Each structure stands twice: as C-alpha cells, then as structure tokens.
C-alpha cells in the first residue's frame, strides 16, 4: 500500500497508469491539481519520484492519465478545464504541456478516461455530460492532435448501451478499447448557496441503490468503429457480479479483463482470451 502525506496522493484518485518500460506508476491528484509518478515498487509512505504541478502545467482537476511508452509521453484528462494535456514522460515540477487539446470543436466535457494507441497513432478519450449537445461516449483523436480540433470519430449513441462511462483501457496490440460503462444515474451539481435550486422538494434523487441501467464492460475497436455502434464484446449480467463498474484494465498475457465495482467495493477478473488475439 502506498499512503500518507509524503506520497502526495489524495483520497480521491480516479485514474492510474502503469509504465512497464520504465517501471513507474502514474496517478492524478485532482484535489491538489497534480500528477504524481512513483517507482513501480513503491510502498508505504514513499515520495513520488516526480510531480507535475503548477501554473505552467495547466492542471486544474486531473482525473485520468495514460502513458505512451513508445513516444515517451504522459496524457492527462482534466475535466476542470475540459482539456487533454500531454507532457514529456519525464516531466517534473511546473512543466508546460507539449500539447493541449481543448475547445468547443473537441467535444471534451467531463473527461473520465484516456488511452493512447502508439501503433495506430490514436488517442481515445471517454467523456460524458448532460449538457445539451454533449457527447457521452468515446472521442477518437490523432495521437499528435493539438488545439481546438474535432475528433476523428465519435462512438456514442443508444446502440452503444452507454449512459455513463468512466475509465478506459486500450491494447495497442489489437486496437481494442475496453470501456467501463458504469451506467448509474446523475445527481445535479451542488451549489452551496442555492442547493439544487429549481428542483421540486418532493423529488427523490437517485442513489446507487436506486439507479439507472446495469453497467458493463464493453469492447470497441479504435480504428474501425464510428458512430452509434454496439460493442463487439461485453461483460454484463448477474453471473459477472458487476453492477456499476467504474474502472477497467487488462492482463493481455493471461487473457484477463479486470474491473472494480463501486457498488460491491470489489475487484473482478474475467477470462476473455479471445479479446487479445
């Protein structure tokens, strides 16, 4: 376990990445607007080997991270400014991003997952929002995109089965995108001076016990899929044990898909070797 104030982690961490090439762990700290990088074998109250934080970094609420081991870059999804920031892998301190993707053309809103495919030179972002015209789905950019650019493709719509999503993973060997479709319901944001202004006093807001559609882990292809397309593979149902999966990763070597579930407060591993061929 890695914990304690010297780690510069927070109790609110919704993203994580592992860099196998350099044996490092990368995690965002949204509460301190930072990204912290640990050695792979870190334990206890161990300080990060590098920390990206500061005004030049452009970080405001980093939620999700990915590492491109081929091109030596770290990608950060920051919904606080609705942008993607790209840093040198070894960036440290108040480092400027190499590139930023941001603006109305990007369709970036509540960014909750990010993954990079150095083989096909693609960047995939999961985003959601209830805002009018907002996309709840996957945005696929060119890996080196910068500025206010339109995504190359958007995977979203009723056929996807996604009503809300979180972390994504991507296997560069196959181009498959693994998506944690948590699919629980929304709460409106809280304004401390006017809590939920305009809502009827009789309204019952949802809770995890009383929520939307059943969540799942879905699989799409980063190169071919576009528009309102169903997943090519899915992990869903009572036998799976998962209800609202909030994260996903994989162990390609053993053909395993791994997903935590917030309702059960647990971690589930599924054997799906066909997805890694």
């Amino acid at each position, binding site marked *: *376990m890695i*914990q304690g104030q010297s780690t510069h982690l927070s109790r609110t961490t919704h993203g994580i990445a592992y860099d196998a090439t350099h044996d490092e762990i990368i995690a965002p700290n949204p509460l301190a607007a930072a990204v912290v990088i640990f050695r792979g074998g870190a334990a206890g109250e161990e300080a990060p080997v590098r920390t990206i934080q500061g005004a030049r970094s452009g970080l405001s609420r980093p939620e999700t991270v990915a590492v491109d081991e081929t091109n030596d870059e770290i990608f950060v999804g920051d919904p606080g*400014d609705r942008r993607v920031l790209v840093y040198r892998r070894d960036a440290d301190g108040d480092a400027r991003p190499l590139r930023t993707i941001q603006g109305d053309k990007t369709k970036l809103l509540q960014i909750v997952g990010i993954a990079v495919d150095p083989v096909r030179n693609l960047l995939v972002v999961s985003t959601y929002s209830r805002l009018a015209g907002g996309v709840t789905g996957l945005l696929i950019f060119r890996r080196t995109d910068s500025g206010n650019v339109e995504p190359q493709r958007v995977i979203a719509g009723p056929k996807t089965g996604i009503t809300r999503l979180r972390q994504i993973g991507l296997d560069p060997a196959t181009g498959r995108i693994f998506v944690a479709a948590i699919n629980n319901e929304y709460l409106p944001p809280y304004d*401390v001076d006017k809590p939920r202004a305009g809502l009827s*006093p009789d309204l019952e807001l949802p809770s995890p016990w009383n929520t939307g559609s059943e969540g799942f882990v879905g699989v799409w292809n980063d190169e071919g899929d576009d528009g309102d397309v169903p997943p090519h593979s899915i992990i869903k149902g009572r036998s799976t044990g998962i209800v609202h999966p909030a994260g996903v990763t994989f162990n390609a070597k053993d053909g395993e898909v791994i997903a935590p579930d917030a309702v059960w407060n647990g971690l589930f591993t599924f054997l799906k070797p066909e997805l890694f061929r």
Partner: protein
Amino acid sequence: MRRSLIVTGACIAGIVFLTAPRGAPSMEQLFVAQTHAAAESENLCLMGGDDREARGQAQQGQNAAAAQAARLAGTVDTSSDLPPVRMVVDPYPSFNGVFVDTAGDRVMMSDTNRKSLLVYPRTAGSAAAKTPESPRQQIMGPATGIGFIAGVAIDSAHHELFAVNNDVEDRLVVFDDDARGNAKPKRLLYVPHQSWGIALDRRRDEIALSVQTPNMYVVFKRDAQKFDAPVRSVRGPHTGMADPHGIYIDDTHNEVFVANHGNYRPAELITSYTAYDARESRQERTGNAFSETARGSFVASSVTVYDADAKGDAAPRRTISGALSRIDWPMGVAVDEAHDELFVANNGDNSILVFPRTAAGNVQPTRVIRGGATGIKGPMGVAVAKDEIFVANFGDHTALVFSRLAAGNVAPKRIIRNAPAGKETSGFGNPYAVAYDSKRQEILVPN
C-alpha cells in the same frame, strides 16, 4: 477514502460462481446474496489470514493453469454473462466513523465496505476477542440511503442517528434511535459532494459537515432536509483548510476542530460538480478569461481550530502542523472537553496523537499511541468518552478501546471485531480505477 493506492496480488483462488436469486433480483437481493456467498465460501473471499503468501502463489499457478487449459480446450465462455475467475470482495464490514453516546451507553460506527451503520453497547468487546461482536443494531439496505459512508453522530436529546455519505450518494441520512435493517431514513439532506465528517452543535441545534474539495465546512440546522441550504459556511484561502476530513465541535469552548490532509486547490480551480457531473468548467464560469496562474499545492497536514461562530473566509484561531506534530493524513478528531485534550486519528502513520486542547504551531503531541501491540491500522475515526478512547480501524476488521491516558505501544483494553480474527481487509474505498503491473503481476487500485 483512507484513500491510497492499493496493490493486490493474485491472492484468491478458483472459479467463483455466484448464486443469485431467480427471476429479476433487486439490487438489495444481489447485494445480500453476494455478501452471504462471500462470507460462506472459503474459496471466494480474498481476505485471508497468515497463509496469504503461500495461498497466493498456489492460486497464481491455478489461475494460469486454468487460463491455459481454457485456451487449449476452447472452453472459454465467450458470452457476456460470465462469472469472474477471481474476485476481491471483503464480505465483512469496515469501520470508518465512530461516535460514543454516553446517554444511551452505546457506540455507533459507519461501515464503508458493506454500506451499513452498526451500533454496539459502549462496553462491547474484550481484550482477547477473536470472533465478531454482534451489533445490537445494524441499518443496511437499499432504502437506507447508506452508501460510501463516513462520519456519524448520535443526538441523544432528539433520539436521532446521523450518517453522512462521502461520495456517490451526496446525502446525509437521519434515522430514529431504534432503526434497524432496511429502514428508510426519517429525513435526508442533500449535501455537497465529498462531505466527510459530521459534528453536532448542541448549543445552536446545528450540524457541521467538512467538505473535501472546496476546502470548507458547512453548517445546517439540525433538522434540515432535502434541498435546504446551509445557514453558513467557512471557506476561503484564509481558513487554512486543505482537503478537510474530521470535524468536531467543542461546545464547552465554542470551537470547531478540523483535520486537513493537505491537498489544496485555490477557489479559482474549483468548479461545482458532483460524483456524477461537471456542470461547470472554468471556461463557462469566466468565459475563457480565467487566470492561468492559479495552481494547486501540497501543504502540510494539519488540524485547524475556528471560533464556532465563524463564517466566510475566517482564519483559524490556532493551527497544529509541522514535523514535530507528526500529523499525517489526519482523519477523525475528538476533544475531551473535560480534560482539555485533542485526539487525532493519524491515518498516515497508524497512530493516535494526543495534544493539549489549546496546542498551536509545530508542537509535539503529549502522547502517542502507536506500535504493533496497539492494533491500530489505518485509523479513521476516534472518540473519547468515560475515560476511554475509541478507535475505528479501516485497515483491520476492528475497533479498539484504550484507556484515556494510554501512551506508547500498548495493547487495547477491548477489541470490537466485525470479522473473525486474522481476516484481512481489502482496503478498498469506492474503487474507481485500476491498472495492471505486468512486471510484478499485481493489480493497482487507487482509492
């Protein structure tokens, strides 16, 4: 959640198949079925005892073998509704917040893992306890509104039980004194996202909640409900709050104590959001004219103390912080108003720190309870009553009771277990992300 980064190896075995009720089970039925299955199945629960390493190695081998056999035999289930080959689910409660009600002679704790409230007699437990203590009340189920729960309190004058959810549910729930089971709260109050601690202000008939991200605490009338707004809040750069957790109101001295982890973002970087939506970005708020100079920072963990009448961007009366203080990710705080002492559940180094109530600056604690004999592991809640210290452990399936003057590496007077001795906790607190360390074959789970 203790929030931290947890590394879990492949330490469970075999194929897990959960038996769910036929038909269209409710989430409650699924939850209960899974909890019972996990509790009763020796080959299901990962939360083992001392044989973990050996079992983990054996299980890794079994898993690899099972995967290989499946590949060769072509028997892999390619349908969507397939059982997991492994799961890490802790079937037992994990204690978080703690409150001692001397009038009712009882202690109440929140359970983040199984999502419940547990009430025990105040004198429950024993020094040699090896088996779980039966609560005299447990409130749990879909009607309760209890989820990723944190702070708790009992108002004995009004016969009410309070619990606040830290994440996801974004609500405070209030129950009648004798509620149990899948009870609907007598009232609920929607609260800011990431509310964590709760404190009762008996003099003003109010409740105060600490809120992590906005670095603030908010005060409501005790009987506030639904969409009622706070009557006041303390927030702003002069408050010194940074990722606050525990909160305690000292009625005797008219002060509010707040425990801060030290993660800080200025107000300019804070946008209104919930666990579910970010309605507002900085661009929307400022029309792309926002300053790019605002930055996050790490400040030392601290305990800040305010006048109980404070509101707005009020500076603390006192701050305890610094290397001498040993404060490290403080969670719960409590004041012994009769003996003028402050108690801190020091999550970062598995200790309880005791300071004079009026301590300020970079000062040493007067007593520290820490060490292997204490059993303190991931302390979240602390309470003081009747010359005893109650500690809610998140890193172990226990709550511990010490003498008020305990110090050093001392054993607790009593242990209240919520699982058989030796059962490990998962350490999970609402896991929302995961990564795989292919070098060590470990799964990384931030919390």
